[in-house]
């Protein structure tokens, strides 16, 4: 029941916002309150979650299309709990950011943000293939409109690219899931028997590698991340991208084990390519958002590396990295947004010297930056270490490539920090560009606090994602 509330509370609130003619202030407050209530519901769920127990928890099942054995079946596993948490926390921060900057047409905007929250939570808790697919597609609708209406000048081209790319992947997934479901006799993810079809695997994986994205399916990423409003970019890279890697774990790896090992080398190669190529592009990017966008590509590669290593350490690290990267990239994109609000741009050529007289901005950007480059002791370091240790057990050279790319991460992140905060004062940085205000602090500081908490206790996520902390066995037993 509580899982159902997590999905439908924000969607119901979205309908309320669309229907009732509330004022701008009331609409925004309602949306922020609902997104905070959502966080509260999740905390309640997390406290009641039994991490030692095997199998699905808080599950609920209802009829939907009985004669094809499609049902409304939702529930959470350990790792889905963390991803739901990431979703509700990041969405609360981003919705509040939208309220803080005062987006135009508030009823449409906040309604869509709430709808997006519900749909994304749905992706992470759906335990029926068609339901999963429905939420996976439903995420696209608000994103399309959010980018298309509130985005930058090049938004029309960006939305078309984004939509066509992701829809191409997910429509092939529809064909794959019909094939899977009709063969298995059920569309239920818990009950369904594993399949051996390589075509089905490829159909699913194409959707996930586009969403994540992995090289060479990232064509939509740079333009979309640059043109979307900053809080939407934050959601895209922090949360939506994780739907792709979550799908790999929940469906591709668990339900199609034989094809997974058949294509393992290919996907590890794509993941490594995304990691190296994304890092190199991030080093060349001329703007803050570009750096964070390409580093997201690299991090998706790293997560996929961990997942497809097929080892205990790899799975643990991948889940931790999904959460940690989700938080840090949300925080970084929101910070990029605050920089843009003060200077109208995030081009490095025009920025510089923002640290002077702006201690809060400097501290937060610096903290997020060094967590993102995986400085030892940070949550991201723990995640990357686990992933590399896991993939090392598969073959040492994957770990060598990964370790090399992490050096690149230090290079691009430090370059970005110094270009924004240090160096000579940029031409658009004026005295009037104030430090972060209380409103902005109140939505970025919790994200950073979450990161620091995870840095202090990474095992909180990595040891509490799979029952009994035996990921490989859980995957083999298909979670149940």
């Amino acid at each position, binding site marked *: 029941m509580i899982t159902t509330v997590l999905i439908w509370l924000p969607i119901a609130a979205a309908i309320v916002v669309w229907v009732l003619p509330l004022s701008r202030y009331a609409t925004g407050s309602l949306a922020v309150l609902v997104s905070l209530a959502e966080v509260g519901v999740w905390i309640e769920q997390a406290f009641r979650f039994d991490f030692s127990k095997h199998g699905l928890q808080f599950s609920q099942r209802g*009829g939907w*299309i009985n004669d094809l054995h499609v049902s409304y079946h939702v529930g959470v596993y350990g790792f889905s709990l963390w991803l739901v948490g990431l979703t509700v926390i990041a969405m609360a921060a981003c919705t509040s950011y939208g309220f803080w900057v005062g987006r135009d047409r508030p009823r449409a905007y906040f309604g869509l943000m709430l709808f997006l929250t519900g749909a994304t939570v749905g992706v992470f808790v759906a335990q029926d293939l068609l339901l999963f697919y429905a939420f996976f597609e*439903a995420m696209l609708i608000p994103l399309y409109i959010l980018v298309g*209406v509130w985005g930058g000048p090049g938004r029309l081209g960006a939305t078309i690219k984004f*939509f*066509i790319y992701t829809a191409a992947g997910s429509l092939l997934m*529809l064909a794959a899931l*019909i094939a899977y479901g*009709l063969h298995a006799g059920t569309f239920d993810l818990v009950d369904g028997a594993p399949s051996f079809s390589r075509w089905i695997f490829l159909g699913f994986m194409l959707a996930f590698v586009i969403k994540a994205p992995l090289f060479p399916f990232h064509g939509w990423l740079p333009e979309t991340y640059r043109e979307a409003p900053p809080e939407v970019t934050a959601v895209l890279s922090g949360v939506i991208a994780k739907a792709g890697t979550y799908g790999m774990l929940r469906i591709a790896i668990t339900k199609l084990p034989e094809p997974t090992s058949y294509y393992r080398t290919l996907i590890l190669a794509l993941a490594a390519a995304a990691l190296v190529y994304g890092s190199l592009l991030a080093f060349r990017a001329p703007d803050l958002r570009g750096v964070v966008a390409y580093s997201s590509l690299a991090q998706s590669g790293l997560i996929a590396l961990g997942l497809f290593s097929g080892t205990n350490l790899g799975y643990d690290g991948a889940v931790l990295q999904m959460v940690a990267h989700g938080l840090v990239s949300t925080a970084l994109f929101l910070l990029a947004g605050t920089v843009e609000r003060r200077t109208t741009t995030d081009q490095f050529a025009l920025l510089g010297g923002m640290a002077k007289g702006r201690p809060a901005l400097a501290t937060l950007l610096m903290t997020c930056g060094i967590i993102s480059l995986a400085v030892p002791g940070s949550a991201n370091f723990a995640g990357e270490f686990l992933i590399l240790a896991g993939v090392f057990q598969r073959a040492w050279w994957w770990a060598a490539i990964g370790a090399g790319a992490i050096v690149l991460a230090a290079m691009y992140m430090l370059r970005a920090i110094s270009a924004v905060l240090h160096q000579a004062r940029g031409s658009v940085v004026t005295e009037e560009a104030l430090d972060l205000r209380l409103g902005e602090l109140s939505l970025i500081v919790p994200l950073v606090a979450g990161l620091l908490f995870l840095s202090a206790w990474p095992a909180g996520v990595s040891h509490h994602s799979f029952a009994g902390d035996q990921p490989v066995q859980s995957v083999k037993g298909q979670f149940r």
Partner: protein
Amino acid sequence: MIHTPHVDWFSISTILALLGASFVALLGAVLVPRAVRRMFGCAVAVLGFAGGLVTSVWLYVDSANGHRVIGDAFYRDRWTALGQIIVCGIGLVTALVAAEQIAHRTDDHIAEFFSLLLACAAGMAFFIGSANLMVMFLSLEWFSIALYVMCAIDYDVEGSLEAGLKYLVVGSFGSAALLFGSALVYGSTNRIGFAEIAHAGHAHDTLLVLGLAMVITGLGFKSSAAPFHQWTPDVYEGAPTPVTAFMSAATKVAAFMLAFRVLRTAFPQDAHLWTWALAGIAIASLAVGNFAALVQRNIKRMLAYSSISHAGFLLIAMSAASALGGRAMLYYLVPYSAMAFGSFAIVGARERELNAPVTLDNLAGFGWERPFLGVAMWFFMFGFAGLPLTGGFTGKFYVFAAAYRHGWAWLVVVGVLATLVSLWYYLAVVRAMYMRTSDELRVAVAGGSPPHEPLLHAAVAICMVVSVGSLFAVQPLIDLARHATSAIPF
């Protein structure tokens, strides 16, 4: 002395209700003062369709054991009743929209329009239940002639007149093909009843196969499947928008439901031929509809091509030739009809506001100006594209599942690729309504605020409820469809 068969009056009560209302509306054209004629016609039509809904629901409940009545000429079963329910529903919303939209410049012939609408729906209700080739042809002509006149009802508008004439010429060609095909089938089997044809026919009789091909051609014209679609864009564009909305929804329902019955009942021994033929027509429709829609600027033309592509999806279900295919087709028709009707009604509202054909350019900003219609339009567009906002999503899933069960995974892939292409033009509408920059928004609006259109809003709201509701209430609809499909022999 001619032997008259026993008549089961209750089995044709829907048709009688609609025809009765049609006569009342026609009397109103003469007897009711001009000032209230429009509202009178609308009220009679709404009552007529409501009566038709009641009787067809009753028939559905009371016809669990399908059988033929009136000299074995008409089916009294749940397939017929369900078709009549859908047609009456579409007619009801058409009556609402037509009251505000039809002939609002001249105010002429409004009562006659409602009379024709009711008669047309009666013809369709008869058509769906027809049990032999003679009744099929007569009822086809019955509703077609009413449609020809309805297309041309705005006879002072060149486009409307052209649409009526074009539909008449091309439609007659389709009817002729159907008639010729029927004659060949009769010549080959010496029977006109569908069930008797199945017993009398030999699978490899050339004459019978030729007749079957021509029957499919004739029905293909009515359902506007490629390559029999040439009339569709022109007629849909030229006809008064409520008529287009009615045609795009109701004609498809009637044509597809009858086609499925004829093919399954009369030609089961040739199933290996017509399933492949339908798959071919489906692919042609998907290709023509989607690629031609890509380049349209005029929204009505674009929606016309989109309706051709949806004929392709329905044909995928039909070509599976199974009970699952029949259920998939029936289910798909419900959200599809609602979305097709609703989107044309919204285009009609914009058309009336601008007094000009609606294009992607002058749709700019529509979503912000009229929020309800805008939101409804993006629901319909995303729904057409198969995104999970409306039953269009589950419909596509069902159709593909039927094709996959039939063993045609390649047809699923074709359908998926067609859906992908269709995203482009459906999203173009959303883009035009919401995402243009402010300087593009300065479109010349005819002046003043848009007309107050409560009935149109009500009709669009009904379409919204049906299309979104069908996403959630899949199983009840499927159960209805299952009972209806059990009347068809498999």
